[in-house]
């Protein structure tokens, strides 16, 4: 108890809270602009923190981390362009709500569910850090393969009912992920002799192109715009109590899924949100509305991708292992300030752990306030005349794609992906599986091959691993589910017809 109070008092200084607020605001800007990522924000500002006290520096970095992911949902909801890969799942229901004239409500749910997800994961961090960490450590190559396979298959299975089109898109993403150095032998693949391709195709420019530029091209070619119909309608921001009650289960189970997935090193909010969304859909009494503007679907995905933050921090603080790129930089920042993440930190410096917990709590409350107050002004984006908005998306997309790695190759990747996104939309092939395939492909491939190195090429030895078996079963189920449901539906219909006959 004394440690909790000491931790709280260390952060209750106006300078610390001021730096936290600066961090959250910067994070919100970084998150809302596709191409600017939390990783980049934290990396850019880490050197600045050498000149302030450890608490102040940490406050700013945690503020950025906690501020980025919630605001990544904002462009996903308003213009169907996810600000971060973690917000892809949020665009499915969020953008559908915007088309229905409920942009305000979607933004409100994003703010509330994001903060709920963060706070839940922080609670896990404060009370269950070590059990979660030991679960994360059990993830060896075979388990990673199972998790990523499930992620891609869920995406393919759930996107819009066209399983085959989803599989096509996901497979294309996996194929694109093969470009670059072979992860096991470092031999260049599909690089056509260009060193720019050695590190593979970055997914952020592809995501911006597919979602952003692709959407713009479709709107131009259809000569219609959502904004024309639903422009003025922003609607209420805060959900009704009854709606909130109905969303509660999806929100909290999403937070639990997100925390667990986030705790596993290298798996983050992107895959966590998809798994949480699918889980919410399957357990919902109204699963058919998912993807068409379901409040629960939006809440589950927003909550899960934010809960991954607390999960990642748990692994980082308990084991000294980075859960994602951001926490890897945070470890470096802590080391420079002479703070060593790991089991000893919890034993010797509990007050510091609680300082982090309180900083994250304050940051997530602050981003919620910003999200709710900002919903109405932000939704004004929708009343911008369409051509202006299109031009804006293209400009920001181009800058974002370049800013990622300072590479012109990425800008070209963005434009090519934009044209592909246009064709995909015209042929109703879902875009999500492609991006997820591209993100998860390297993880999936390298871990399958690692697992095979460890089992000496024996595929059957992998099947003795319980966690992997659970993932494989879930993968099979997600791919077969639409078929099973269709058959059941047919059976019901034919049963229904018997009395008539």
């Amino acid at each position, binding site marked *: 108890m004394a440690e909790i109070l000491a931790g709280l008092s260390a952060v209750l200084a106006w300078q610390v809270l001021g730096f936290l607020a600066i961090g959250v605001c910067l994070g919100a800007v970084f998150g809302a602009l596709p191409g600017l990522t939390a990783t980049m924000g934290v990396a850019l500002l880490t050197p600045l923190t*050498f000149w302030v006290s450890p608490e102040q520096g940490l406050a700013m970095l945690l503020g950025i981390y906690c501020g980025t992911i919630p605001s990544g949902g904002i462009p996903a909801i308003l213009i169907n362009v996810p600000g971060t890969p973690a917000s892809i799942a949020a665009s499915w229901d969020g953008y559908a709500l915007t088309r229905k004239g409920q942009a305000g409500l979607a933004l409100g749910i994003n703010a509330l569910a994001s903060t709920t997800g963060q706070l839940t994961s922080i609670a896990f961090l404060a009370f269950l850090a070590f059990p979660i960490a030991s679960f994360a450590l059990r993830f060896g*190559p075979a388990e990673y393969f199972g998790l990523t396979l499930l992620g891609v298959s869920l995406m393919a299975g759930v996107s819009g009912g066209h399983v085959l089109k989803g599989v096509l898109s996901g497979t294309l993403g996996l194929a694109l992920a093969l470009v670059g150095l072979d992860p096991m032998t470092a031999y260049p693949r599909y690089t056509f002799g260009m060193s720019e391709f050695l590190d593979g195709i970055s997914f952020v420019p592809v995501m911006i192109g597919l979602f952003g530029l692709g959407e713009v091209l479709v709107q131009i070619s259809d000569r219609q715009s959502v904004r024309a119909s639903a422009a003025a309608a922003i609607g209420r921001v805060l959900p009704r109590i009854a709606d909130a009650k109905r969303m509660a289960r999806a929100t909290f189970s999403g937070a639990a899924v997100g925390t667990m997935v986030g705790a596993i090193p290298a798996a983050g909010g992107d895959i966590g949100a998809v798994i949480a969304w699918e889980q919410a859909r399957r357990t919902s009494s109204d699963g058919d509305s998912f993807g068409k503007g379901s409040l629960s679907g939006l809440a589950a995905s927003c909550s899960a991708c934010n809960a991954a933050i607390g999960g990642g921090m748990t692994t980082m603080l308990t*084991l000294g292992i980075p859960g994602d790129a951001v926490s890897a930089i945070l470890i470096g920042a802590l080391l420079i300030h002479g703070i060593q993440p*790991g089991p000893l930190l919890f034993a010797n410096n509990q007050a510091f752990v609680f300082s982090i917990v309180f900083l994250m709590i304050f940051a997530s409350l602050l981003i919620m306030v910003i999200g709710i107050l900002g919903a109405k002004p932000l939704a004004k984006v929708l009343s911008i005349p369409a051509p202006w908005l299109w031009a804006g998306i293209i400009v920001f997309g181009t800058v974002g794609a370049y800013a990622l*790695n*300072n*590479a012109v190759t990425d800008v070209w990747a963005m434009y090519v992906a934009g044209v592909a996104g246009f064709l995909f939309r015209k042929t109703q092939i879902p875009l999500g599986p492609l991006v997820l395939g591209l993100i998860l492909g390297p993880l999936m491939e*390298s871990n399958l091959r690692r697992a095979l190195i460890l089992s000496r090429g024996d595929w059957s030895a992998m099947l003795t691993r319980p966690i992997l078996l659970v993932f494989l079963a879930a993968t099979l189920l997600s791919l077969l589910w639409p078929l099973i449901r269709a058959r059941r539906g047919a059976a019901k219909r034919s049963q229904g017809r018997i009395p008539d006959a």
Partner: protein
Amino acid sequence: MVSRVMASLAEGHLNVPIVCEYKPGASGALAFSFVARRASDGYTIGHAPVEIAIVRSLGYADIGPSDVSLICLVSKTAPALVVHPDSPWQSFDDFIAAAKTGTGNIVMANSGIGSIWHFNILLLEQGTGARFTHLPYGGSAPALVSVIGRHSDAAVAAVGEVISHVRAGSLRALAVFDAARAGVMAEVPTTHELGYPIGAPAWSGFYGPAGMPAERVAMLADAFKTAFETAEWTEFCRELGMEAHYLGKEDFAAFALEQQRFFESRIPQLVRLENP
């Protein structure tokens, strides 16, 4: 990180702000090619890690230390061999003995084929006659995690990368691949004192495009030298487990060329040895 800290310490002496731009890709090959193509006015310089002496041997880019104007070297980092604390190997000799008897029973995680730490593992195999099953990861952090989670048996990574886990008791360091012991891990023996003079450290320096005017090089080297001598730099190196080590223009050029010859002569031979 090295360049950002160095830049912030050096810019006061140059009276111009230093803007750090991050160009990832292909073990630094993209960044080397980018800097080498810029105007040689001294306003674009790059951070030169050990990879500048390696990428040509790996075929990533046709560039090496002699194609650029080297300015100075500021730090060095030795590799360390680590195992899980619950593993039966208490010492380097235990470990090597076990690796010699088995036929690749010991799984050795590395931070990527062609990385400097993987290269050190190959040197270890060549120098001691040990054989491992190699498990490549995309960087040191995941390779170390796989040892901590007992998915692999051992790993080689920078002293600075393993020190935190060693202090926390989640990894055990068996040897540092260097002639002298590492300041932050003085209790760990070196390969040289154990009778195996192997090891290729990672290092960090700065360089500009070829043909930079001598006075510009000298000016930059002076600024970095002043930055190198600050207490902040010593502290930064100590915290990250690096060795603050300064080499001026001529010494750095000689050292880098010698390193390039070393990698050029050893890489083909080690690749044959592994022959997966």
